[in-house]
């Protein structure tokens, strides 16, 4: 039986909420119901990190500590997890957690408003036995904005944790926490709250049954788009199906022909898996969003929103990925290329859901991807490009090129591909291929970039690709 109550572990106890409002954000719950005001609202859209909290999730008898943005997390998704807030890090006797102490020692706070968020991001890093290398530190706080310090003292504070003992109160009470999590871990949730429905199935079959009865639902994974309906558009979402609770869909399989990624697999897990096949995929995913986002967001979510600037999409298109759709009865496999219809419209029918994504394993191909945005960290692309080529003896045998940010949907550059296909690539061919992009795309101007710039960059990325392949080296300013 599914439960209409949610249970989570908080301060070493099981905390139960009866019939919660599925549209209430975790941040709102923390600040107004728990009356803990250490967690701050900075933007209510997952873009500044001030609301960062850490969730402990049971994974193979261990606790996986994930930093998340509580402002775009709906309360019921807390089911079965441990909630850790900035206030919980300090001991009863007043002594600070090593992460907190380091931030004090290195003058890591000025106005202090962003500080709790930084503490929680660094705490999650601390709990993952990080080596506190420069890159890891930067990645872990890439989703936390600070307007005062310029980040240097925060980085110094993080570095100082390198040689510190990793034992803290949370490791001491780990066994107990695991036991508590096990007690509450096994339940599906169905909530009816003032006309609003919320489903968090655990199994595929449950999901199918829910969809059979409730065709008009919104799927929730990372919530980067959907939550904003509540926090920004100030509307209700009447029917939510939470995908990330479905265990059957949290997997990565590989049959040597393709890698299959289940719809509820978090990006952060996928990005480390895909690295040995397509290193550039990982490179782009690191910049896809902050760890707070990548901890909960999924490829399936990115595909379903069908945003022209979704960073996974051009990459998947150029790799000719397939998408597995299911409904109560049938399974259907489509090329991703055929999935997008128009601006944010897809072929996903009512009652249907994205089951998984299949990414071909291509040996001997050259796969390169580029993301260009105003800011390196946590920004939306002006242009994102992916190139998948098979080159034998200087001749292009096959080529698939796709761009994001260049049209109303993520789209292949067919004319450009035609020029390159079966050609021996020369300067002249490259400049023809660049020109062909003008036939492929008519990019728009907005606050991120002008159409002119987008086209210029799209062309130049082709030149960059050519140069990088020719010179066998990577050129760029980020390293």
């Amino acid at each position, binding site marked *: 039986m599914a439960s209409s109550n949610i249970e989570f572990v908080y301060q070493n106890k099981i905390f139960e909420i009866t019939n919660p409002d599925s549209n209430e954000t975790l941040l709102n719950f923390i600040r107004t119901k728990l009356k803990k005001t250490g967690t701050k609202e900075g933007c209510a859209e997952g873009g500044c990190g001030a609301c960062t909290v850490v969730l402990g999730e049971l994974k193979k008898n261990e606790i996986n500590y994930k930093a998340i943005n509580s402002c775009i997390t709906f309360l019921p998704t807390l089911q079965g997890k441990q909630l850790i807030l900035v206030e919980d890090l300090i001991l009863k006797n007043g002594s600070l957690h090593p992460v907190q102490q380091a931030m004090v020692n290195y003058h890591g*706070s000025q106005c202090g408003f962003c500080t709790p968020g930084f503490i929680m991001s660094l705490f999650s890093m601390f709990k993952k036995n990080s080596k506190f290398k420069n890159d890891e530190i930067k990645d872990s706080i890439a989703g936390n904005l600070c307007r005062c310090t310029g980040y240097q003292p925060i980085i110094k504070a993080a570095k100082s944790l390198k040689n510190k003992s990793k034992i803290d109160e949370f490791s001491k009470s780990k066994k107990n926490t695991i036991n508590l999590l096990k007690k509450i871990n096994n339940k599906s949730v169905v909530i009816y709250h003032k006309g609003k429905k919320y489903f968090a199935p655990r199994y595929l079959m449950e999901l199918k049954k829910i969809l059979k009865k409730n065709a008009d639902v919104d799927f929730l994974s990372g919530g980067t788009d959907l939550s904003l309906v509540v926090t920004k558009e100030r509307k209700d979402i009447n029917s939510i199906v939470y995908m990330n609770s479905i265990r059957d869909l949290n997997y990565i399989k590989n049959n040597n022909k393709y890698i299959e990624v289940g719809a509820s697999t978090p990006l952060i897990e996928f990005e480390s898996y895909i690295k040995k096949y397509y290193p550039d995929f990982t490179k782009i995913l690191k910049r896809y969003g902050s760890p707070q986002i990548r901890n909960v967001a999924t490829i399936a979510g990115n595909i379903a929103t069908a945003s022209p600037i979704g960073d996974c999409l051009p990459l998947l298109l150029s790799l000719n990925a397939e998408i597995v759709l299911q409904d109560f009865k049938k399974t259907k496999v489509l090329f991703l290329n055929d999935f997008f219809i128009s601006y944010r419209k897809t072929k996903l029918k009512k009652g249907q859901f994205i089951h998984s994504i299949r990414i071909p394993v291509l040996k001997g191909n050259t796969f390169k991807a580029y993301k260009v945005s105003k800011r390196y960290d946590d920004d939306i692309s002006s242009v994102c490009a992916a190139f998948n080529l098979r080159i034998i003896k200087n001749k292009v045998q096959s080529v698939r090129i796709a761009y994001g940010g260049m049209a109303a949907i993520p789209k292949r550059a067919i004319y450009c591909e035609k020029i390159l296909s079966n050609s021996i690539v020369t300067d002249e061919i490259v400049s023809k291929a660049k020109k062909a992009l003008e036939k492929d795309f008519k990019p728009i101007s907005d606050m991120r970039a002008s159409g002119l710039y987008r086209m210029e960059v799209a062309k130049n990325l082709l030149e960059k690709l050519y140069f990088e392949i020719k010179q066998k080296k990577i050129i760029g300013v980020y390293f």
Partner: protein
Amino acid sequence: MKIENFINENRPHESAIKHVSGQAHYTDDIPEPPGTLYGAIGWSKKSHAIIKKINLDEVIKSEGVIAVVTEDDIVGRNDVGPVFDGDPIFPKKAEYYGQPLYAVAATTTELARKAVLKAKISYKTLKPITTIQEALKKKSFVLKEKIIKKGEALKAIENSPYRLKGNFTTGSQEHFALEGQAAFVIPQEDNDFKVFSKTQHPSETQQIIAKMLNQKSNTITVETRRIGGSFGGTETQSFIFAAICTLLAKKTKRAVKLRIDRDDDIIITGKRHDFYSEYEVGFDELGVIKGLKLKLASRCGISPDLSGAINDRALLHIDNAYYLENVLLENYLCKTNTASNTAFRGFGGNQGMMAIENIIDHIATSLKKDSAEIRRRNFYQKKKKNITHYNMKIEDNIIQEIFDQLIKSSNYKSRMQNIKKFNSENKYIKKGIAMTPVKFGISFTTWHLNQAGALVHIYFNDGSVHVNTGAIEMGQGTYTKIAQLAANALGLPFNKIKVSATRTDKVPNTSASAASSTTDLNGAATLNAISKIKKNLSEYVKRKYKIKNSEGIYENGMVKFKGKIFKFNKLIKEAYLNRVSLSSSGFYATPKIHFDKKNFKGRPFLYFCYSAAVSEVIIDILTGENKILRADILHDAGRAINPAIEMGQIEGGFVQGAGWLGCEEVNWKTNGQITTHSPSTYKIPAVSDMPEKFNAEIFKKGKNIENVINKSKTTGEPPLMNAMSVFFAIKNAIASIRDYNINPKLDAPATPERILMSIKNLKKKYEK
């Protein structure tokens, strides 16, 4: 025995432990009395329109709504303009997209925010003016233009062997303090109101609310314990929120909290002024400027707000560190249908400085000389060439020393050679380097604002000390530094001093915490209050113990008079029992300054802060992507009260400045609608934008020659301008494409797009 000294010491921020453990309260964190309501504001969707009708029926009917307020609820002044009118709380005519029109109080913030969207408003749309160019063309100004002359600029330019012309733009900037606008108002008896506001300026908040309610100022108390960053964004822009929140509290007779959503915050409030300049400069073969004609125009938005003072500060910093013999300045304050632009760290000074730095850079490229050398040649000198264009003699000039030291410590010259080599070997990736100076004047240019009060109590039972001032703690560490000064003056441990929340009923008539002068003013007032209490004590000791002419030395918890030593606590207790006052107010008014705004002459500043920076960048000429590889800063903080805190300002200011000139771009549609109002579209620097190598240092020989607390110099605003070096390093990298022979046209912010387009234009020029 070592004498405990609490100044010149690295101490953590007084709230550091509270910050890291979530225990520091900001306005929205203050516990609420039962029955508290929550507000939200409805605003104009047109940037210029007559409001024909606002139908709020659906708003009032919306779930949880308790009350709605409009223009009709304002009995007094319907304006929050600080100096001039022009910022109506609820206007009759909408003058910008985002202008508040009405507000609601509801049982939760979520319900209030839902409700405000339900209004039906009919507008008669008018044509908006949104850009500086349009405003100049239509002569749409918020204040009268200014013309300033020194010497004979036109003649000097004409007689110069070299002349250049050009134009240059610096962009706007959203404050993006992590804590957004917030207010919390609790009605009191007698129609009094207790107002908690996220503001840099409690006193003016008090006055504006009093005027709006048609009540006396003594009925309003404003309190601010700390604010989550501000940077000028709540020097005036907080007033409207405190005012509306009070209106709601008055109407409902209940406590009301008004926390503004990030998007609404950015849409409703003003930002940094963007500036457009046109210049004509004459110089000699050494690159020394002989004459300068400069037109400066700024986008002020709909009202004067602080634009007059901001533009004045731009004019006062058009020299930066350079001696300008012949100057002709024109200044236009453009009225546009955009939110009223306002104070932002640097307050126009930085915009003025960018204008001259761009000119110097242009001169250097045209002479094919190192720009640092051209800068050096134009510096103010000590004995001659030391009078500014506003007739102030510079007496504390140390820019030469700072520049020389940094040029060596940063290996500027050898790195420049390495960069040239790198650039000749790399087709797509180019490096650039630049060095820029900073000279920034300290004091409010409005003379009367240079005053501050303080209130100090010593409690007789335990000798603990309570300090209150007009200073607002916004992350700059002013409470910490004031507590350090007080501890030092009383010879007490730091933990015996408590600086309490800033309140208008403790210290009245305060100036905004602004102009970098907060600690200078309020710290000095605190010391004045302490000296009065000390005087009471020494008079008592003299009287009681017949000791002559002894002021007492306060050290390590002891007080030493000639021939008599007390434990501090014992003396305090004894003094109390002998009916001696242990409480005093204090006051400070900045000496020496005077400024005739009309003739633009005088000594507006008590002293100058000096600094210099060298930045090295790398750019990708295929995409315009860029990165700061290294930054070296040498900054004059005088004798710093708390070097760790000053360092935080120096590094943080630099990165904020790099954002202003780099990735931060405010964008409006042609109809005046702002499109960058959230962190997903407006990008402030994140961790990877910090320089790869970041060497910031405080100038060790620094000492304020003026009588400022501890001989220190403030650090608030000046570090921001060190980021000018980043912009010119980018320009330098672009110029490498044509062997440094052509001056690239580059406006700020240098976004990847601007960089790429600059490169494209440069290539075109060459092809011609």
